[in-house]
């Protein structure tokens, strides 16, 4: 039985999940499989790039955020998936050894007229480091099952 429904998310709610340490091995393994660019694979080559040193793939940040979201609350929720992602901004490089946390902020919540069994929740996720610097920010609307389809709208 899912614990978290659409009704449990309110505008302004903030939660922080993690921490999780991102290792060099993980950065290189992800890049070798999905995004084999020198900036993500090899220190010497990465020095010549705009990041000035080895940094994780932007897709790796997204995948980590998805995993931290899942472990943080999604697996205990009545999630029905997401139709997409509004925006991802890669603000700072993901450096090897960084301890990251995921901060979620509920931006908006609304019911669905056409599908009364669910509601829509718009959330911003910030991947932050130990000093609270935002590495990547992601804004997405998720579909969540309602505990009470006849309840508040």
């Amino acid at each position: 039985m899912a614990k978290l429904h659409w009704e449990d998310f309110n505008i302004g709610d903030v939660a922080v999940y993690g921490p999780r340490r991102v290792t060099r091995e993980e950065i290189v393994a992800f890049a070798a499989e999905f995004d084999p660019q020198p900036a993500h694979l090899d220190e010497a080559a990465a020095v010549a790039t705009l990041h000035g040193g080895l940094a994780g793939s932007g897709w790796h940040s997204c995948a980590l955020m998805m995993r931290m979201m899942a472990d943080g609350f999604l697996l205990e929720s009545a999630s029905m998936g997401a139709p997409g992602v509004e925006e991802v901004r890669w603000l700072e490089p993901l450096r090897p050894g960084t301890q990251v946390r995921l901060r979620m902020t509920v931006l908006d919540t609304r019911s669905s007229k056409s599908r009364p069994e669910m509601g829509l929740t718009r959330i911003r996720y910030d991947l932050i480091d130990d000093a609270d610097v935002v590495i990547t920010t992601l804004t997405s609307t998720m579909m969540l099952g309602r505990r009470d389809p006849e309840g508040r709208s």
Partner: protein
Amino acid sequence: MIFFEDIVVGDSAIVGRHTFTTENIKGFAGRYDPQLFHLDEAAAEASHFGALCASGWQTAIVSMRFVVEHRRALAELARARGERVARAGPAVDMRDLKWLQPVYVGDTIEYRIEVADTRASDSHSGFGLMTIRTTGTNQKGEPVISFLITHLVERRGERG
């Protein structure tokens, strides 16, 4: 990578095809998106998806290797002609990612990239910004994913 000045809005290419299997769907989901409809056939059948389907992130992320290989092939051609090759800078943002259809076991997705826009960069002298639309289409011709990524591209400048 071609230089910022040489980019033509509307240029497009098919960069690769990826077939989603039970093994690679579960392999990705187990690491990055362990929702049951990506991991367990019975749970997926009971879900609104109706069958095991790929994480939307997997559908997006597997396109990247094709883009990297495409750029590498263009760079090799330019080098063979004795030309200097532009540096691709990091991506700055992604917008408007849409998961249009679920991707199921056995689906083959063809990825196409198209130059959507170019503009100047305020923060990086020597670079411009290029926005690429990536579209993934399944074997039935249905679009399953679409997104826009903007990244930095080196300008030819005076050195070219």
